[in-house]
């Protein structure tokens, strides 16, 4: 057995696999399959200050080797989360990350402050949600935007702070550097690539929101590239995600520079994907006589 433990921004994870925000809810549903302690961590569904109804359906569309979603941050609000979900989650033996989203900097700050008073392990600043009109990705596109929101939230946040970045930009590494400069403890990338599908019979966009966020294996090469560019640019840990569905993908992502990785869409295709990924990762490490998974991070040898 290789050592799968990693530490991100001071937070210990039993293994580098984290359930990606929005794909594993608050953990209850996947706990039917295996103990949540199977996962190194879980990033909860994006929460907002107040309850949000989300976007009208349809919210899901399939694409070649991927999917689109336009859930639009449906969630019961931060207080409900702290009251109803967090206590249970904290007993599951997995690191718990709160993914927070807001329409204004004040929202973000209020949530960060409120969550700093709980026993949450980490806060993931979601400034990259493409499915909401106000806020969301608007803070995450320019380095200035990333820097200012991160700096604001940092003042109110005593928990380790990870900033989640959008891939719908020209230079994601620059945005990561801006987050780092403003005090982020880690960055996670990528959120979804904005996409669209149209029903050729009704001539309507398949999603009621017209566009949605693309995830799944299709986006994996883009995510690897962005993680590679970002890991060369910043000193804080990079958590890599986007399209990971096999253990080989996980190894590739870590070699590109990820200190840990998140798995999202793969849960839908196969709820046991995380178990298979961790098993494959462990075997790979053993076969290659690598004692600790941390030795993979950034070990790609570019030409």
């Amino acid at each position, binding site marked *: 057995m290789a050592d799968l433990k990693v530490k991100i921004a001071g937070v210990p994870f039993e293994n580098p696999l984290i359930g990606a925000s*929005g*794909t*594993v*809810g608050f953990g*209850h*549903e*996947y706990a*039917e*399959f295996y103990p949540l302690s199977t996962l190194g961590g879980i990033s909860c*569904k994006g929460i907002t200050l107040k309850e949000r*109804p*989300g*976007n*009208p*359906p*349809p*919210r*899901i*569309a*399939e*694409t070649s*080797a*991927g*999917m689109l*979603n336009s*859930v639009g941050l*449906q969630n019961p609000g931060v207080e409900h989360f702290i009251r109803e979900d967090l206590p249970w989650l904290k007993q599951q033996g997995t690191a718990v990350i709160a993914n927070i989203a807001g329409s204004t900097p004040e929202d973000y700050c209020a949530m960060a402050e409120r969550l700093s008073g709980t026993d949450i392990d980490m806060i993931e600043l979601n400034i990259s949600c493409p499915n909401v009109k106000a806020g969301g990705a608007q803070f995450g596109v320019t380095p200035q935007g990333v820097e200012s929101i991160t700096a604001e939230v940092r003042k109110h946040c005593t928990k380790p702070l990870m900033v989640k970045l959008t891939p719908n930009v020209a230079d994601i590494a620059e945005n990561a550097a801006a987050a780092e400069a403003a005090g982020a403890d880690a960055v996670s990338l990528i959120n979804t690539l904005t996409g669209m599908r149209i029903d050729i019979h009704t001539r309507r966009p398949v999603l009621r929101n017209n566009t949605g966020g693309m995830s*799944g*294996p299709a986006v994996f090469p883009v995510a690897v590239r962005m993680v590679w560019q970002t890991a060369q640019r910043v000193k804080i840990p990079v958590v890599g995600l986007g399209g990971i569905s096999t253990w080989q993908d996980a190894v590739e992502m870590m070699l590109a520079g990820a200190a840990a990785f998140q798995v999202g*869409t793969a*849960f*839908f*295709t*196969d*709820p*046991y994907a995380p178990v298979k990924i961790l098993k494959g990762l462990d075997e790979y490490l053993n076969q290659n006589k690598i004692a600790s998974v941390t030795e993979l991070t950034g070990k790609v040898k570019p030409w």
Partner: protein
Amino acid sequence: MKYDTELCTILEKRQLTADIFDMTVSAPKLAPLAKPGQFAQILVPGKTLRRPISLCGIGKDTLRFVFQVRGEGTKVLAELQAGDSMDILAPLGNGFPVETAGADKHAVFVGGGIGVPPLLGAASAFSGEKTAVLGFRGKDAVILMKDFVHAGCEAFLTTDDGSFGVHGLVTDVMQNLTFDVCYACGPAPMLRAVVKLCAERNVPCYVSMEQRMACGIGACLGCAVELRREDGSSYYGHVCKDGPVFSADRVVL
């Protein structure tokens, strides 16, 4: 455990119409957990999203699915043969509340087209008097009629073009029936008409809904459906977890 995945061997495959297939799979792990009206998420090799298909029949250690080829995914599933296997996530959602209406009651099962299969399991499980009203486009689209008779139903058939059974809509038949509870599944216009008829008579009605899904278990919030609270306000519930069967007075059709 409420649901799980299982690699299920196809025991029997039959073709019911030009585009509807009937498959029974071995599911010793999942079948004992299942109730009529629940559904499965079936993995299609090469596809990211599983396909939601209702449980049409539940055996001791088998599950039966009746599905129509509507796109790429169901096309691939239809090409599988007896002996092949399917990766199935089931049972999901809440079934038809056939136990709440007692054996002294008369239930009507109203299905339209590919909405018929999920009702069969419910009809089989119901212990009171039962009538099935099944509507189809035409003669060539008729499925499962004998199965409903076999399940103890008096069965009425309607076709849009009059090529078989009653020429007309399921509600034309329902007009002339008396019943205490209604279970319905089918296209939205049919459901709306059925719900209206039941509401006029003040008879409880349960409908099975469809929506595009990702997780199938309530984690992704993808399969939103507009639901009504008692106070008349509405919110987004989820077909996979809160449904697929809803009390008609709670769902916005």
